[in-house]
């Protein structure tokens, strides 16, 4: 198992390398650089050249790339060219935890609502409970963040005035480097963004749980269990639930990775200082180092997420073994 994990991690290094190379090449190919504009004005030519030279942007791309790799190797994600008192490491420290907090809360919410709803719907199959749950779930999957976010702000923030509509209730310094201080302030601020992000997820988890449980209930070993004379309750709890949750549990990995990139809209609408917002900003501002580094971080998260799925799948399902 350990060997398998190590092998997977080693294999993913060229993938990450290629992603960084790709991003690096594409963003440098975009017209305009970090120093070509000043607010709504153009930067004078010679000053632009001086600043570009300071950050090595005048050198051939492969040298810039090599320098960037050397920087990465020493744990330095690069400078912020237009915000010299900060570094990319600072920005990541400030914003990554916000995205992680938002994302994990949304995932927790999704599981907390999705699994019970899915189980309930499956057990009460073809009753009004099932139909309501299923319909709500499909509706939840269908409503886009860009519709749900503004709608929630309108209802709870503007009309009812019961929940704050902007900001994240926590900020650096973080506990253990990524956890918020869980004050009342934090929880109230978290409600709307987390619900916006978590709705679609909980809906798809509910659908998945329902389908999976129904499938398991029809399998032969459940029939055997029933035939043995076990009570229905015992059949469900001891046999059906466990197996039906295997596919559900294994989507945790891609779910986390997906959610972390899915925070773009939520961060923008709710004025959260998260990584997605920095990513969009870095494209606009041509903060090459920030953009490349954020892409790298997203890729690493995805690689780890995928790895987590495989490991968890093997762990839950003894039939699978890695060599």
């Amino acid at each position, binding site marked *: 198992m350990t060997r398998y994990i190590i092998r997977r991690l080693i294999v993913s290094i060229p993938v990450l390398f290629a992603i960084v190379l790709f991003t690096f090449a594409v963003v440098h190919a975009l017209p*305009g650089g970090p120093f070509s504009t000043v*607010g709504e004005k*153009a930067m004078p030519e010679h*000053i632009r050249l001086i600043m570009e030279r300071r950050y090595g942007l005048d050198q051939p791309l492969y040298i810039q790339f090599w320098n960037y790799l050397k920087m990465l190797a020493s744990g330095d994600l690069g400078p912020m060219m237009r*915000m010299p*008192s900060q570094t990319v490491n600072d920005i990541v420290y400030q914003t990554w935890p916000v995205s992680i907090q938002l994302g994990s*809360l949304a995932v927790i919410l999704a599981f907390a609502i999705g699994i019970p709803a899915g189980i309930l719907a499956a057990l009460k199959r073809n009753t009004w409970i099932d139909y309501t749950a299923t319909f709500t779930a499909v509706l939840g999957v269908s409503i886009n963040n860009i519709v749900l976010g503004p709608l929630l702000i309108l209802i709870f923030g503007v009309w009812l005035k019961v929940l704050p509509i902007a900001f994240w209730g926590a900020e650096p310094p973080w506990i253990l480097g990524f956890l918020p201080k869980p004050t009342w302030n934090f929880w109230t601020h978290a409600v709307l963004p987390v619900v916006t992000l978590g709705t679609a997820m909980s809906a798809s988890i509910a659908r998945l749980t329902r389908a999976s449980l129904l499938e398991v209930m029809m399998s032969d070993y459940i029939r055997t269990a029933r035939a043995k004379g076990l009570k229905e309750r015992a059949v469900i709890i001891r046999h059906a639930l466990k197996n039906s949750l295997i596919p559900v549990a294994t989507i945790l990995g891609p779910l986390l990775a997906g959610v972390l990139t899915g925070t773009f809209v939520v961060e923008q*609408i709710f004025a959260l200082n998260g990584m997605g917002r*920095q990513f969009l900003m870095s494209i606009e501002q041509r903060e090459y180092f920030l953009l490349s580094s954020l892409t790298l971080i997203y890729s690493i998260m995805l690689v780890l997420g995928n790895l987590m799925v495989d490991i968890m799948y093997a762990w839950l399902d003894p039939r699978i073994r890695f060599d």
Partner: protein
Amino acid sequence: MSRNKWIILILVLVLGVVVLSACSQSTPEVVEKVVEKTVVVTQVVEKEVEKTVVVTEVVEKEVVVTPTPQPEPVTLRFYSTTDIPTLDPQIAEDVVSINMIENLFVHLTNYDLETAEIIPETATSWDISDDGLTYTFHLRTDIPWVKHNPVTGETVQEVDADGNPRFVTANDFVYGIKRACDPNLGSYYSSIIAPLIVGCEDVLNAEDPENIPQELIDAIGVEAPDDATLVIKLNFPASYFLSMTPMWTMAAVPEWAIDEYGDKWIEAGNIVTNGRFVLNEWVHGVRRTLLRNPLMPEDMYGTGNVEKIVVSVVPDVSTGYALWLNNEVETSGIPDAELQAHLEKYPDETVQVPDLAVFYFGFRETKPPFDDPRVRRAFSAAFDREKFVTEVRQGQGLPMKHFAPPGIFGAPPIDEVGVGFDPEFAKQQLAEAGYPNCEGFPTVTLLGYSGQATLNWIEFAQQQWQEHLGCSPDVIQIEQQSFKELLAATSAKTPDEEAPHMWTLGWGPDYPDENNWVGDVLWCENPGNRMKRECTEADDLIVQAREETDPAKRVEMYRQIEELFFGPEGEMPMAPLYLRIAYVAQHSWLTAPRALFGGEQFYNWSIDQAAQMAAMGK
């Protein structure tokens, strides 16, 4: 057994929740700390000198104070759509940073909020030599350099190596201005002041920016004969120089702090300031908090009563406006789409704020068919500015027929120079150019930048040209790019094939003089020159006008220049559209005289705290 695995899995999930919520025990501590902070501040406000004593007192008092709440400082809350890139006066180039810098640092002179005249700030008076080449400023020397400690909440005056308290002197200004000439700072505004000050341009354009010879730096025409006198020498008698002296670029900065901390000198805890406020907190991307500087000389306090400023970062105006509706900020921009409803509901909580930015369509003069001035005139005259301002901008602006808006020295009255909207003239010009009723007109591109505001104009323009020129919308390809891409695409260096025919941009003033408009945007030798203009008679006049010392003559020359550009026979390198005037939502308890130039002077803003608290439900 796989059941155990399940239990472990659930445990992991639960643990995640627990970890998130378990730390809540630490909250009381935080609350206490906050209380402690405010205590220190009030203490320091009362006493100016013995700061070290204050600290020891506070530590003992802490426990006693907790039950009785301190009066809240008068707090001004608003937001900006971006974080500030810098607080360094010489580097700052965006409005948001400049707003902060205006309140953290004193400047050489100040703008009067009502008359827009130059009034004393650090300089109490000044003399201009008869040839207009030497400016001598007489400075006050009682403004202390202070450092604020965000942890203890103390504000302490800086001391030099010998232990003497530091006050702002002419040498600090000399250092600041020479620093502004340094090309390695990468400051946009360097190139605005460099052409004026003797020797500054030589340094800015030095061949090897990494090894600038000391002689060049010494030769910059800024001197401090004594602590209270600053002498600035100019290259030519630029009559608009005085109007530039309130600029942040020429502010005094603390050399010793910059040497000590490098790029990080502007961070909270490091920064040394001399203004009416101190930086208490800068949570990047989230918020910055300013507190009154208790050590400021009393006569510089300003007319306002604001003691604390909290500026949050809210990327979206729509969200910001919702915050305003909830009384969570004092003032906010109003999204266009909310304006009508806002004006009906809150007529008394609306103010009009002009920012002197003029928006225009630029024409590539070298790219056919816009190489023909008649085509440019036609496209400019076929845009109904009045209708645009009233219907699309909902009254937030004034139609412009020429470039420089009123309030700028040398700008002609708003309705006297220029053709403006004239559909008959437009049709006739287009016909003369060989495209009657737009027949045979080639496909042209109009480039706007991302954001709904410009999208509205370019779509409106498309419609206007169809209506008044007969040009089908298919002929005018409209596109949106990010702002950077637009500037790159329209740069004079971009070959004509890759440049758009037309684009939309705005110009906001750096200093209140016509030279900053026709001279810095349209002048043919200006390195920008997006229109790729050839030099003409107008350009000779631009050069003459900036050296002319007689104000009346200058006004007359600028009128001629505007006529040469935008009159019926004009070259029409751009189609000026409108002057932006924004409606701003502002709660009735805030009195906020707005600044036309430079940063907002928050020290002159006042808040009726009782009304504010009542609205917040406290």
